[in-house]
Each structure stands twice: as structure tokens, then as C-alpha cells.
């Protein structure tokens, strides 16, 4: 596999030190990651979170909680203020008497959905355009790089607010593709976030395209697209994984911010950001409404960040935190 030459070469040092049999890069990566306890705990938490999100309806039934959108004035006092954690509502209720526990669980679904979809789209666009810019250089590079510069200068939050306002009526914009809710959130994130990854990929490709194995492939008559996708792309797996993991928490936070501002997930659906916004005016009397979604958001973002760092160390030991 010509494509992994680079990774393999980087890891030769360690293999020689160990002086035992040769290992595949994947094995080496896994061995290094396993030794990073923080990263492993984070990975465990993320797997747990995914399971919880996927099985949310089941868990709610098992615990005996009410569905996330079920309102009830039964759990409000005579001033309409919510009641705190109890056996019926283990994380208390909100101003409409909805169960905070089930809303936090359903909020995880939203966060992960955004994290995965928006990150996938921005990585896809970023990698493809970054490779083209780095490989073809010249005019292609100029166009893509200037577009990146423009987008990086874009007030992304204002863009999201404007889009949400403009597309708030009827069927939204672009035949219903963009309307307030996850559509806008995902669109905005994908629209801007691909630039970071594209820049990094471009830089990598600029140096890779001068390497001997590319010359070898070319002399064998490989086409440009084959060189890009079969020779260069596999060498970019490490940076792609690392940056994707680091973009995910940013995207989760961005979704929370947009929902906080009211242009993200639309009511009555639960989102951690929207819950924090609703909790703000009553935080001094209903701490549970802010603490639980806040903690969920904090832990999730922290876990992805720590895992991202761990992956970076494992894939790229020379440039890691401990290097």
C-alpha cells in the first residue's frame, strides 16, 4: 500500500527501538491511543452518549419518565414556577412542566446529529477543495484560497441569524432545504467550517505532491484523479481524523449557541442550547433547569476535545502535546 508510506516511515523509529516484529500503522496507532487514559475515558463517554441518544425512547420508558414534549401544570406551583428533582422527574421540570431528564436525553440526539452531519459535510467539502487547491495550484488554488479568505472573514453568527429570519416563513428558502431549525444550523456550519480543514489539507497536499511516490505513480501513467484520490488521499487520513474530532465540539457548541438565540432547533423540540436559554430568566429559582443541560453540554464538548487531542498524539507522535 503505497499510500501509507509516509505514516509508516514516521513510525520506523519506534519500531527499531522496540526491536521486535514489524507492526502495521493501525496497530501502532491503537497501542498508543490505548495508553492515553484520558482519551480512552473520553472515547468511552462518547460511545455511551451515542448509545443513550439512539436508545433515548427506550431509556425514558425504562425509567418511567414522561416523553420530552409532554406538558403538565401538575408539576408547577401556584405561581407557575417549576418544581425540582423528585422521584417523578429525576431532573425536575421546566416552566411548562416538561420533564428535564427526557429533554436532556433528546437534546443529545440533536447535538450528535449536528455534530455528525455538519462535520461530515464540511469535512467532505474541505478535503475535496483543499486537495484540488494543493494539487493543481495556480488559478484553481487562487480561486479556492481567496474564497476561503472571504468566508473566514464572514460574521458567521450574523449570517445564521439573517438566514433564519429570511427563511422563517412558508416553506423556507431553497425549496424548503433551509428553514429555521437544524437546516439552518447545518447549512451555516458546513458553509463556513470547511475552510479550516481545506487550508490544512491544501498545505499537506502541496508538500505531498512533490514526493517520490507521486512521481513514481505519474511516471507509471496514473491520471490526476487517481493520484489525488488513490495516492494522496490515504496519506491525509491522520489530519482528517484529528481535525474532524476537533471540529465536532465546536459544531456542538455552535448549535447550542444558535438554539440559545432562537434560530436553531425550533420548539417544542429539545436542544441543550434552547434549554439553557429558557432556563436563564429563572435560574435563581430553578437551578436544575440550567445545571443538567449545561453539564451535558460541557461533558460532551470536553470529551470530544480530549479525544481529539489523544488522537492527534497517537497518529502523529512527533507533533503531539508531549513532544
Amino acid at each position, binding site marked *: 500500500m503505497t499510500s501509507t508510506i509516509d505514516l509508516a516511515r514516521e513510525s520506523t523509529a519506534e519500531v527499531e527501538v522496540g526491536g521486535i516484529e514489524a507492526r502495521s500503522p493501525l496497530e501502532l496507532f491503537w497501542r498508543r491511543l490505548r495508553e492515553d487514559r484520558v482519551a480512552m475515558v473520553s472515547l468511552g463517554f462518547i460511545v455511551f452518549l451515542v448509545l443513550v441518544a439512539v436508545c433515548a425512547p427506550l431509556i425514558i420508558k425504562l425509567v418511567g419518565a414522561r416523553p420530552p*414534549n409532554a*406538558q403538565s*401544570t401538575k408539576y*408547577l*406551583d*401556584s*405561581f*407557575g*414556577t417549576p418544581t425540582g428533582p423528585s422521584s417523578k422527574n429525576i431532573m425536575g421540570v421546566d*416552566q*411548562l412542566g416538561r420533564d428535564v431528564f427526557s429533554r436532556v436525553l433528546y437534546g443529545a440526539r440533536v447535538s450528535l446529529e449536528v455534530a455528525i452531519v455538519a462535520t461530515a459535510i464540511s469535512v467532505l467539502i474541505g478535503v475535496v477543495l483543499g486537495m484540488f487547491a494543493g494539487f493543481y495550484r495556480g488559478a484553481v488554488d487562487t480561486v479556492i484560497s481567496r474564497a476561503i479568505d472571504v468566508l473566514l472573514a464572514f460574521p458567521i453568527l450574523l449570517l445564521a441569524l439573517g438566514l433564519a*429570519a429570511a427563511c*422563517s*416563513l*412558508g416553506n423556507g428558502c431553497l425549496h424548503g432545504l433551509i428553514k*429555521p431549525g437544524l437546516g439552518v444550523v447545518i447549512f451555516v456550519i458546513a458553509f463556513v467550517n470547511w475552510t479550516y480543514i481545506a487550508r490544512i489539507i491544501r498545505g499537506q497536499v502541496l508538500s505531498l505532491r512533490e514526493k517520490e511516490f507521486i512521481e513514481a505513480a505519474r511516471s507509471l501513467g496514473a491520471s490526476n484523479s487517481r493520484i489525488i484520490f488513490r495516492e494522496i488521499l490515504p496519506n491525509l487520513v491522520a489530519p482528517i481524523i484529528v481535525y474532524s474530532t476537533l471540529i465536532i465540539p465546536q459544531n456542538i457548541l455552535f448549535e447550542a449557541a444558535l438554539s440559545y438565540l*432562537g434560530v436553531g432547533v*425550533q*420548539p*417544542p423540540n429539545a436542544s441543550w442550547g434552547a434549554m439553557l436559554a*429558557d432556563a436563564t*430568566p*429563572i435560574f*435563581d*429559582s*430553578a437551578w436544575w433547569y440550567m445545571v443538567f443541560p449545561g453539564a451535558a453540554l460541557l461533558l460532551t464538548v470536553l470529551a470530544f476535545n480530549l479525544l481529539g487531542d489523544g488522537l492527534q498524539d497517537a497518529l502523529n507522535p512527533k507533533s503531539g502535546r508531549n513532544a
Partner: protein
Amino acid sequence: MQKLRRLLPLAALGVLVLVVAAGCGGGGNKSSTSGGASTTGKTGGTVTILDSAGSVDSLDPGYWYYQTDYEELGQTTQRWLYSWKPDGTTPTPDIAQGLPQVSDGGKTLTIKIKSGIKYSAPLANRTVKAADIKYALERCFLPQVGNGYALAYYSDITGAKDVASGKASEVSGITAPDDTTLVIKLDKPVGVLATGAALGLPCTAPVPKDYAAKYDKGKTSTYGEHQVFTGPYMIEGAGSGTVPSSGYQPAKSITLVRNPSWDKSTDFKPAYFDKIIIKNGSDVSVAARQVLAGQSLMSGDSAVPPPAILKEGLTTKKSQFQISPSGGIRYIALNTTVKPLDNANFRKAIVAVTDRDALRQTRGGTAVGSVANHFIPPDMPGFNEAGGNAGPGFDFYQNPKGDLALAQSYLKKAGYSTGKYTGPALLMVADNQSPAKETAEAFQQQLAQIGIKVNLREVPHATMIGKFCGTPKQKVAICPNLGWGKDFFDAQSMVDPIFNGKNIVQSGNVNTAQATYPKFNAAMDKAEELTDPTQRAQAWGQIDKDVTGQAYYVVWLWDNEVNYTSTNVKGVQNSFNGQAWDLTFSSLK
């Protein structure tokens, strides 16, 4: 609430928009400590009012229309032809000597005015003449003054429409034969003028033409910054003819001091305070805690504190609160031009399924008001005629907690044989701030019980009113966060703007349901002309019953006003002004 009137001047229709802005809410049982009974107090001292919003929009008496305008400047700095005692439901002659004398079958009003009322410096030697009130009324039609109610109440004065359209500069129907006599001639009898009620508004605060005319030119009148005061107070430092920044900083502060030209013997207002400071832009929670814990402070425009403070206050500091029905109403508009809301049975199904009690809970529970079942609020003439607390007796308003079975039966009558709505989702535009936001979300959930799906859009309050619910071409089906406050104690100001088909306009529309029913429209046009208070109450009460039966709106709350003070302040509420503080009757203990 951001008190009732804080919102958008709604063009052409002269009634206070009360709307339920962010953080609004009204409070409480009719019980509680109403200081209204005793209005004697100790003279002297300085009081500070804490506002959460930016206070008045304009210093111009011709512009004043909102609750804060009346409370902070209207009642304190100017005298009107007629004003309102704290618990008065009929106007009290202020500059006038008595109520209008009606002749010529209701088409001529003669009003004698008191002599010897003086202006503040620089016109300190000048007395108020009848001609000054004539000019004050005339300038309310000028576009540069931006008045919000003149067309609604004064357009039947002979010649008024010519001034409004710019064809004439003087209203021929208003004359001042001598310095103390004002004569108003009308094209047809106008009930609210004959009773003096519509003359108890700040458009009748005198404005001397020879002094003011130069400021009334240009795109926006600047008379407000140069005005002369007749009330017990004036803006600090305004004696030179210009309001200085020490007295008024827009959206920051207003300082009022005693007006040396004011003669106590000619006025019914005691004006106990020596100085009134109004501070704008405080955070509601912070301001509420400061007022309750501090000294010499009063609540301002954001009368209802957040639920937690309200709860704490009413349990431990009850004596500092005053809660009374404000004469405002909250309702949900069902747009009759959007299918299937054109079907009365469908609308009745929506009313039937609404849990009005749960909606009230979103604003603070029983403290914020009583559950409504028709339009005219308690204490307003016509309330009892429309059924009083029990309501007009329609089955779909019977259960304040909602009645699912009844709603389903109405849906069947509307053609949905399963008792569930199966059509496309309906557009609902709501506020994006608590507690109005929660009200909308609670209503959304209630509609889901009968299969009605809504596209809920949450936007800032002003956008909701201005861009969506007040603009018919947006075809918003449901507007859940609307409210209305009275202009004075007459049901016309509550019912007519919201229900009369002639009031539907393409922007700034307040007949949000676009209700128009020829028989009711005609009844309203007729009722406007009645001059006898008993007949008026009867007629408007009957109209209220009729329109309630058509379910154009889901009415759900008769608001309370929740006000509070520091322990050393004796606050007095004014019922004309939606129970906002009357600063000319409040005092220090």
C-alpha cells in the same frame, strides 16, 4: 409588564396596544393591599422609579399614548382638559370647570375652562386660554407630532378630516369665543366626547400657538424639548425654554422637580413628592430586588417581577405589593381569512380545547389575573352586560381547563369526521421571550390534542406585531401573544378596534383576526354615537356577547397589574392608566 402601552404606535387606530412584551405579566388577586382607598400622604422627599425599558419615546404631549408616558410625564408635568383620579372611572375636570355641556342633539359641546392656570417659564406670566387647547387638539393631527389616537376619537369634529389630510390648518369645528370658553362642533354625535372621556387624554394639554408653532415645523416637531409645563412638576432645568440633558437623557433618566407656576388651589392632585427621578434600563430582576430591599424606590415600567421574586415577595413582603385588575386583556387571534379558520365551528373547537388556566400558569399563575371568557374586562362599563364573571354562556368557554370532547364535536361539525384535524400545518408567530414564549408553546401543545399542527415561529415582540400579526398579507394563521389595554373607561376603546371590519388595514392592523361581520359592524357604528353611559354599556356589552359567540379570538386572561415599592413609600395606583403608579398621589411614609 412592560406595561400595557409600551408598544408601537399603531397607525390610525387609537387604542392602546397593550401587548405583552418580554417580561410582561400582570399580577394578582383582587385582594392584596390596595392603597387606593386613602390618598392622603406626607409632603416632601425624593422618589426614584426604576424602569427596565427606555421610558418615554417622546417629550411631546401630543405624542404621549403609552402607560409609561402617562405615568411619568403625562400626569406629572401637564394638566389636561380632563384628568383621572386614582380610582375614578369618569373623568375629573382639570383645566375644564365642569363636564361638557351638550346641545344641538349631541352635536355641540361647550366647555368652560378655569382662569388663572399658568405656564412654566419662559411663559411664566401667561395664563392658559381656550385657544391654547384648540391648538393642542389641532396639532395632534399633524404628522410631525405622531399622535396615535386623534383620528380614532376626534375625526368626527367638523373640519378635523381636512386638517388630517393637510387641506386646512385649523379645525373649523373647534372655536374659542373667549378666553375661558371652548366650543366643539361635531358632524354627528360622538359618545366618548360627550362624556368627556376622550377629552381626558394628553392631546388636551394646552399648547400656546404663538410660542409652539415655530417648533411644530419640519419633519418631527421639537415642541417636546421646548415645552412649557402646566402640571405640578416640570423637567429639571427646563425653565429657559429648552430641556437640558441634566433633566432628560433619552433612555437613561428623567428628573422632575416642582413647577413654580403650578397653583395647588386650582388642582385636585396633591403632588406630595418634591422630586421624582426616573432611571431607565435596569435589569428587571435587579431592579425588583433593589426596590423591595431599598428605600424610596418604586417599580417602573416592568411591573411584574420574575416569578421567583414575585413568589418570594408575596410570601414575605406582601405589604410592599399592590395588585389589581388593570383593565387589559390577553387573547389569541385566529385569522378568519386563512383556511380552515374561516369556519366558525373550527374556531370554536380551538377555543374549546384551550386550557386557559394552563396559559395563565405560564405567566405566573393566579397572581397575574383572572381567566377571561369574553372581551370587556372587569370594572369596565359593559362587563356585567356582557355576562360578568360568568361570561355570556357559550359552551366552548365553559371549562377554563379546556374540554376535549366538546372540541372534537365542534370539529366534526366543521367537517372533520374523526374529530381530528388532518389538513396542513398552520403558521403561528409568537414572541421569543419569556413568559410569552411559554404561553405560545403551551398553546401549541393544546392544539396538538385535536390534531392541529403548527409551524411555530418565534421572533422579537416588535417584529411579531409589526411585521407579522399586524400585516394581513403575511397570512399568519394564529397569533398567540396579543393583548389590549383600555384608553379610558369605555368599552368602545376595547371592542371596536379589534372587531370592527372597517378597521382592517394593510399595515399596523389590530383587527388581527380580520373579523368583519356586517351585522356587528353596523351595531358598532351605531353604538359609537350613543351618548348615554347606560345605553353605551348595554350596547357594547351586547356586541361583546355577539362577537365572543363567533370565536374570532381565544380570550384567556384579564390582566392584573403588579406594582411594588420600598417599605417607606406609599404607592397609589391609577385605574385609568391601567393601575400604573399615579405619581401625583403617591407619597413617602
